[in-house]
């Protein structure tokens, strides 16, 4: 009986933890009737996917150059690592600007 109560409590905790995220996912606006595609609800997904793909490509290029530089010149590891981390953070922030717009327009 104790394990049952523990399981139920864990399920309640899980639902309470996930619930705010689930509410945040509802897109605003009602779907139009008569067979029109509700583009408003799926545009954030497309936008974020494109932004993340571009960010992934750019970070891959940065990583490639950093690894080549490290292989050629292991003595400069500290400087290369610094520039590498900085570049990754700045590129990451570009993808996150898209998330900011999605959050401000669709997830409020």
């Amino acid at each position, binding site marked *: 009986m104790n394990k049952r109560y523990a*399981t139920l409590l*864990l*399920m309640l*905790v*899980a*639902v309470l*933890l*996930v619930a*705010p*995220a689930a509410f945040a996912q509802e897109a605003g606006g009602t779907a139009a009737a008569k067979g029109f595609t509700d583009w408003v609800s799926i545009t954030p997904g497309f936008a974020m996917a494109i932004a993340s793909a571009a960010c992934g490509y750019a970070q891959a290029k940065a990583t490639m150059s950093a690894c080549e530089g490290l292989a050629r010149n292991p003595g400069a590891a*500290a400087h290369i690592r*610094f520039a590498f*981390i*900085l570049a990754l*953070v*700045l590129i*990451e*922030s570009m993808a*996150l*600007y898209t*998330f*900011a717009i999605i*959050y401000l327009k669709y997830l409020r």
Partner: protein
Amino acid sequence: MPLGHWITEFLNQILGGPVVALLRALGAEPTDVHHPIPQHVATEILIVVVTILFAAWFKRRLSVERPGGLQQCVEALLTNPMSVGARDLLNDIVGHGATRYLPMIGTIGLFVLLCNLISVIPGFESPTATASVPFGCALTVFAYYNFCGVRRHNPLGYAKHFLGPSIFLAPLMFPIEIISNLARLLSLTVRLWVNMLVSELLYMLFLGMTLSVFAGASKINVLGYALAPIPALVPLVFIFLHIFVAFLQAFVFTLLPVIYVSGAVAEEH
């Protein structure tokens, strides 16, 4: 243990009356008269008060000849073997006379770091996950580096920085420079805010998902035992990511103002 809520309640009970009076004197009507202090402001006040008390206590235990462990940990914020401390960045990027910028840059960096990290404690939300807090920090940085530039060169000399290398390019360069300076404000804000928001959200999402998996599977006893490590271990990865992002964003929020200050006080050759 909603620690953040308790702090907010406590501060609202103590300071609620004066804060409402101050808001009304400034012409703004508080949305909730019994809780005029929002949670992120209460958490910020807690961070500032705890840091000041810690610094006041710690000042007496500082020693040059025999630094203890805590002193070395705190000094790592200034000078680092990886040269990512505040003073290292200033010396590398600004050059001579860099120490005069250390108080402001160090305070902003430390404040952002502690605001980011407080969300690791269960019950607290990081104030930097609210849009207005990173905006305030970015405004401070913007005002500070422009003030440094104006103080170093006179206002006219500082405006010459915006005109570009040659006088013929000035009509083109001036709007571009103004817009790029304002874009620095935007990028500082959005980078810090969205990074903290997203990493916290990811952590909570994966915590909830793994717990649901466990709760669903525990109907079948053996499967429940077998899958029990999942909600214990998978959120570890995401809280590690959250801590890493917290440090990294605080570092970037220190490094970028140093770069902006160095650009503002640069000498023309």
